[in-house]
């Protein structure tokens, strides 16, 4: 992505190219590790591309900058998508991508804020990242800082009670400096969400908890960008962007198949997957 001038606002078509590169990197990392979670990484790739390459106020040369926007991948198992965004944005050398999940790596199986430059919160235990987001948003307000907190959660993750505890508290404190993006890919570990533990009327539930809820197609880059930019301007409520997505997006045999939640492709599958996500650029 060296040819992109990130000092300017990237266009939607440039962001789409970024997302393609991120999908290739996700597949590469998980293939090299022979472990990891491709489905939920691929479903969130467009969202993270838009955040890291256009929406967030960040400085990859200064990952600890106090006034940076914060990002938390609360569904921490999908960290390959995070690592791909950070590597392409220049937080660390791409050479690290082949070390995912190996001994002595900066890229842990679930993201570790003390090991990976750019990772703002340690995650992996579902339902906690969103609570940490509440804390960061409160911290910003208390210290009169204007950074924004972005949190991506999973739909399976929404079954954790702590997600609803966070929802209540963000509404109580009117945390309009926090935006949650729900990666609604309809699948969790064992099965489809609907079979495991149905979520009911998702948008209405968040609204009932006092949130501004926007619903979009999470793979329509224009819609993603618009929703994120709009969310940052809404005052008086926290906003949730409910993004309808496809688990395994971009790889035909992974799309909508629960088995690809947490398994790695073999050599043949890897080659096909790379061909398919690359083709999507055309």
């Amino acid at each position, binding site marked *: 992505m060296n040819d992109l001038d990130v000092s300017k606002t990237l266009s939607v078509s440039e962001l789409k190219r970024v997302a393609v590169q991120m999908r290739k990197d996700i597949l590469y990392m998980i293939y090299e590790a022979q472990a990891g979670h491709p489905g939920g990484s691929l479903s969130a790739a467009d969202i993270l591309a838009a955040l890291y390459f256009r929406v967030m106020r960040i400085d990859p040369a200064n990952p600890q900058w106090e006034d940076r926007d914060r990002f938390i991948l609360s569904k921490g198992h999908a960290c390959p998508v995070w690592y791909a965004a950070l590597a392409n944005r220049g937080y660390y050398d791409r050479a690290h991508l082949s070390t995912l999940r190996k001994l002595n790596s900066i890229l842990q*199986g679930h993201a570790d804020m003390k090991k990976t430059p750019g990772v703002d919160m340690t995650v992996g235990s579902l339902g906690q990242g969103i609570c940490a987001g509440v804390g960061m948003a409160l911290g910003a307000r208390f210290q009169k800082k204007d950074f924004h907190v972005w949190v991506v959660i999973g739909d*399976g993750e929404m079954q954790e009670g702590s997600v609803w505890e966070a929802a209540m508290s963000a509404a109580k404190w009117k945390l309009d400096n926090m935006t949650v993006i729900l990666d609604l890919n309809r699948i969790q570990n064992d099965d489809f969400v609907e079979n495991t533990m149905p979520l009911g009327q998702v948008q209405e539930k968040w609204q009932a908890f006092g949130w501004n809820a926007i619903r979009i197609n999470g793979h329509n880059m224009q819609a993603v960008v618009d929703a994120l930019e709009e969310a940052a301007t809404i005052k008086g409520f926290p906003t949730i962007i409910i993004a309808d997505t496809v688990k395994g997006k971009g790889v035909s045999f992974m799309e909508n198949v629960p088995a690809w939640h947490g398994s790695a492709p073999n050599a043949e599958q890897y080659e096909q997957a790379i061909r398919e996500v690359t083709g999507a650029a055309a």
Partner: protein
Amino acid sequence: MKSRYHFLLPEVEAALASPNFFTAVKKHATRYSYSESLMEVAEINPKVVVLDVDVGKSLKTNEFAKKYPHRSFNFGIAEQNMMASAAGMATTGLIPFASGYAMFLSMRALDQVRNSVHYPHLNVKIAASHSGITPGPDGVTHQAQEDLSIIRTIAGSCVIAPADHVTTKMAVHAMTEYDGPVYLSLTRDPVPFLYTPDYPFEIGRMVTLREGNDLTIIANRDLVAHALVAAAQLSGQGIEVRVLDCHTIKPLDEEAVLKAARETGCIVTAENNVIFGGLGSAVAELLVENDPIPMQRIGVRDTFAESGPYYEVIDKYGLTYPHIIQAAQKVLDRKYAFKNQMAKGEV
């Protein structure tokens, strides 16, 4: 000469001296031994039901759900609700096996485990896979290196950490019979088959796997195999080690520990768990009040581990057999120094 070993599969005994024991022998993850055994106990006891938290695919309790859809309940990713619901089910006479990852059952749902399960002493069976550092690549958030210590501190708890497939199977049968809460610690990664299928298993009774009187190694779960390999190598140096499999860390088999203390004069404990509050602590607590002999502990020191292949991670964090051998040499030095001092009347 009569073998010093008991209940070991002959091929395991033969492979112990091999430099590549862990790649040479057959292995099976005990999380699967657990779900396979569930099928057997469900057949025998109609009160057995299985509770999941969206990791049924990982424990293969989803096979149980296929066979017994009406005896299977997936709570989604909601460990706290599952645990307190299990307590409620137990009050109605069912025997719920609450299944999931050790990290989230012992820690996310710990309040429920203590106040809803143990305080009323309800008949809930907690089946915890990915116990200790047995998930390697997933990293620290999934490595439950504290679970045995935590559950052990709860009043009236029973904590079982079986070493292999056969022990796990026997433990599942025994805990179904047992009246009260039981925490069963299971491995994510495959561990060697060790036991012959007919060995006598009893909750709360250690197994003497190898006889010896120079020193005792007490181990549990995945480090039992490492203790055996360490003992085989030490035997080559003329040191005969007693190896005890402490599959039930609570209630502790005090008699076996005190006998080992008396007869071998020093003890090494080996656990893939933090050194605080687990097997090593249990043994030390008993010894310090009764027979304070030299002792060394193998366990995770005051640190978190990291991602990596299971064997490489536990090796880096000091848990594999070479570390046990070092601890054995150290404890023997201390034992003989202690004996010399005694002989000189200095103690």
